[in-house]
């Protein structure tokens, strides 16, 4: 029974400490700056913004 509580306390502490660490790190490393550019990280030169990338099989991709 004591083992369970020790595990829980360790888990809780670990979770809390790591969450604080990650949030702090994110703030410090500029993750929350320039969110407009951030939104575009899903794109790349060969799958660029403006080019749809799905279609039904054997059908033309229409322009959007």
């Amino acid at each position, binding site marked *: 029974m004591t083992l369970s*509580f020790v595990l829980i306390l360790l888990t809780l502490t670990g979770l809390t400490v790591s969450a604080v660490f990650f*949030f702090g790190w994110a703030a410090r490393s500029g993750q929350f700056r320039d969110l407009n550019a951030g939104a575009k990280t899903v794109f790349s030169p060969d799958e660029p913004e403006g080019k749809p990338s799905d279609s039904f099989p054997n059908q033309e991709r229409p322009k959007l």
Partner: protein
Amino acid sequence: MHKATILFIGFLITFATAWTGLVLLPARHYNAQAAQLPAASSADEALIDRGRQVYQANGCLYCHSQQVSPRHFRRDQERGWGERRTVSSDYLRDKIALLGTMRTGPDLANIGIRNPSASWHSIHLYDPQLTSPGSTMPPFRFLFEPVKDGAVADAFALPDGTRVAPTADARALVAYLLSLKHSQGEPPDAFEPPAK
């Protein structure tokens, strides 16, 4: 320190203390109480415990709850499902609190009080239609076995004349059901072990 970090530390301390309050402390509290209870020793207790395992193995929980709601909240008590709402200490002596989340079938918290007939439960388990026509509870014929002679005490006759008797698992399950008297009398005092 970055302002957002301070704010966030605040959030997480609140989160951690809430979790401690919601999960950790209740668990410690009930464990301390349970530790004071005398261990089950009689053969009856062993049979009831086996019955609980049969209840779990066959998923009775998925249709039956075992908790009586407060009088002002639901009408459980007017249905005869209990004299009072169940509280945490009602389940202190159980190995697992089979509270359930569905009432496809009736609540069973005090079934041992409102229906104490072992033979009714046997017949009902064998084929619910025999006692409760229109019920959607499945038959548990596989918990029974046919008997040829009249030597078995709790054997019963089916409508077509054949006789069946409960297996050990069925007897255990019935004993478990009859032991369910969760909302009887005053709630057990959580700070004192209930009188044996």
